[in-house]
C-alpha cells in the first residue's frame, strides 16, 4: 500500500516537472495557432485552427527589416551542416595523423590543438572578430564557419577513440600491405561510425543554435540565420497595433524544430556525444 502511494507520487511529480518544462513550448504552439487578437485578453487553453495558416504566412511574408523566413532557415541549415561536416573533415584526418603516425613535430601540433580546448568562442569573440575583419571575411561563409570550428574538442575525442583501436587490426593491415589511406577509409572509418554520428549530431545543434558569432560577422540581412534574426523579428512584430505574437511564435517553432527533432531522432548518439564532452 505504502509502496503504491510512493509510486503514484513519484509519477505525479515527474509528470508535473515534465509539463513545466514543456509549458513554454506548448504555449508557443497555442499562440501560433490563434490569430493575434484572440490572445490579447488571455491565452486560450487549447490550440486553435490557424497553425497552418500562420506558418504559411511567416514563410511567405518577410518581417520588416528581415529577409524571408525561407532564406533564414536555409542560412541556418547551411551553417549547421557546414559546421558539422567541416568539423569532421578537419578533425578525423588530424586525429588519425597524431595517433597512427610518428612524425617530426607530432607533439607540437598536438599541443597546439590541445590549447584550444581552453577558450570557448564566447571568450575570444572580440579578437577573433578583428582577425576575421582584417582578412576581409566579414559577410562570407568562411568568416562565419571557420572560427566556429577552430577548436580541438573533436580531434581530442577521435584520438581517444583511435587509441582504443584493436592492435591486431592494425598489424593485420600492415602485414597485408594496406596503405594508410586505405586503412583509414576501409577499416577505421566504418568502425568509427557511432563516434562520427555522435559528433555530427552535437555539431549540427551547435551550429544551428549559434547566436553571437553570426550576429557579429553578418551585417547584411540576406545572411541572417533564423536564430540570430529572432530579435529583429520580435521588435518588428511588436511595432504593429496588435503585437503579432502568433507570427513570432510560428517562427520560434520553426526555428527550434530542426535541432529538437535531431536530438529526439538520434537520442542515443546525442547522449553519447554529450557525455564525451563535445562543445
Amino acid at each position, binding site marked *: 500500500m505504502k509502496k503504491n502511494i510512493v509510486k503514484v507520487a513519484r509519477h505525479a511529480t515527474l509528470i508535473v516537472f515534465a509539463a513545466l518544462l514543456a509549458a*513554454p513550448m506548448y504555449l508557443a504552439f497555442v499562440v501560433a495557432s490563434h490569430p493575434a487578437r484572440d490572445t490579447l485578453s488571455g491565452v486560450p487553453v487549447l490550440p486553435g485552427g490557424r497553425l497552418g495558416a500562420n506558418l504559411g504566412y511567416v514563410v511567405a511574408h518577410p518581417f520588416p527589416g528581415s529577409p524571408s523566413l525561407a532564406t533564414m532557415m536555409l542560412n541556418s541549415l547551411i551553417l549547421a551542416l557546414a559546421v558539422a561536416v567541416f568539423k569532421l573533415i578537419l578533425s578525423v584526418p588530424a586525429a588519425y595523423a597524431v595517433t597512427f*603516425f610518428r612524425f617530426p613535430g607530432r607533439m607540437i601540433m598536438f599541443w597546439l590543438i590541445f590549447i584550444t580546448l581552453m577558450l570557448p568562442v564566447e571568450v575570444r569573440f572580440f579578437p577573433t572578430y578583428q582577425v576575421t575583419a582584417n582578412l576581409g571575411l566579414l559577410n562570407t561563409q568562411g568568416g562565419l564557419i571557420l572560427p566556429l570550428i577552430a577548436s580541438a574538442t573533436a580531434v581530442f575525442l577521435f584520438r581517444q577513440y583511435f587509441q582504443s583501436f584493436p592492435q591486431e587490426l592494425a598489424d593485420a593491415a600492415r602485414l597485408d600491405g594496406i596503405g594508410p589511406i586505405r586503412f583509414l577509409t576501409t577499416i577505421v572509418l566504418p568502425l568509427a561510425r557511432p563516434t562520427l554520428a555522435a559528433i555530427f549530431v552535437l555539431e549540427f545543434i551547435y551550429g544551428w543554435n549559434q547566436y553571437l558569432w553570426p550576429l557579429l560577422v553578418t551585417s547584411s540581412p540576406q545572411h541572417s540565420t533564423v536564430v540570430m534574426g529572432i530579435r529583429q523579428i520580435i521588435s518588428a512584430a511588436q511595432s504593429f497595433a496588435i503585437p503579432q505574437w502568433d507570427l513570432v511564435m510560428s517562427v520560434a517553432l520553426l526555428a527550434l524544430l530542426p535541432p529538437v527533432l535531431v536530438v529526439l531522432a538520434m537520442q542515443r548518439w546525442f547522449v553519447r556525444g554529450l557525455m564525451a564532452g563535445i562543445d
Partner: protein
Amino acid sequence: MPPVFKHRLLPAALILPEVVVVVIFFIWPSGKALLEAFRQSNAFGLGARFSGLANFGSALHGGYLQAVEVTATFTAITTLVSMGISLFLAVQVESTGRLRPVYRTLFIWTYAVPGAIGAALWLFLFEPKVGPGARALEALGVHWNFALSGTQAFALVCALTIWQQSAYNFVFFSAGLQSIPDAVVEAATMDGAGPVTRFWKVVFPLLGPTVLFVTVSDVLAALFGSFAVIDVISQGGPGGSTTTLVYMLYRDGFQNGDVGLAGAESMLLFVLAGALLVVQFKVFNRRVHYR
C-alpha cells in the same frame, strides 16, 4: 596503441588543415588580444602605443565590478538550482520502471532549443501585458514588469537558463546513477538504511565525481554561454542588472568601439577561463579515475 605507419609527409598533410584553421582563428586572435590589452589607440584611432596596465585600470571601473557581481550571482544561482532539480529528477526517473525512456526524453529535449529561441518563448510567457506567466504573478500580487525591475529581469534570465541547463545536467546524473552498482544500494537496504539515508550516505558520495564535473560544466556555461538569452530578454538592462562580463565585453567592443578596453576585458576572461580549465582537468581526471 603505438604508431603504425612510418610516413612523414602524409601525416603532416593530414593534420595541416586543422592546424591552419586553429592558428588563424584561434592562436593569432588570442595573441593579438594579449598584445592589444597593453596598448592604447589615440583619439582618432590611427596609432597605438604601449600603455602598460592602463587598459586593465580602466577595465576595472564601477560598471565592471557590477558585472562581476552579476556574473557571480547568476553563475551561483543557475548552477545550484539546475543541479538540484536535475539530480532530483534523475533519481526519481531511475526508480521508475517501463516509463524510464519516456521520462528521459521528456527531460533532455530543452537542451536542443537554441538559447535565443528559448528566450523568445519566455519573453512571451512573461510579457507584462499578455503573458500568462506575468498574469499569474499579477494575480499573486506581484507587480511584474521586467523591463523596469532589475531584480525581475535577472530572475527571468536565471529561470530560463535553469530551464535549459537542467537537461544537460540530467544526462550526466542519469549516467552517473546507472554506473552505481545495485549491490551497493541493496547492501545498505539490508543494513536497514531508509531511502533518504541511502541517498545521502551511499548514492550521493558515489556520485561525487559526476557532481564535480557537472558543477564545472555549469559554471562554464553560465559564465560564457548566456549571451543570446540576455540579448533577447533584457540587453543587459535595466540598469546593468543583467550585464554579465561577456555582455559587457560585447557592449564595450562593438557598441562603444573601445578596442583597448575590450582587449583588456578579453584578457581578464581568458585568465578566468584558464583558471577554470585547470579545475576542469583535475575534475575530469578524478572522474576517469573513479569509473
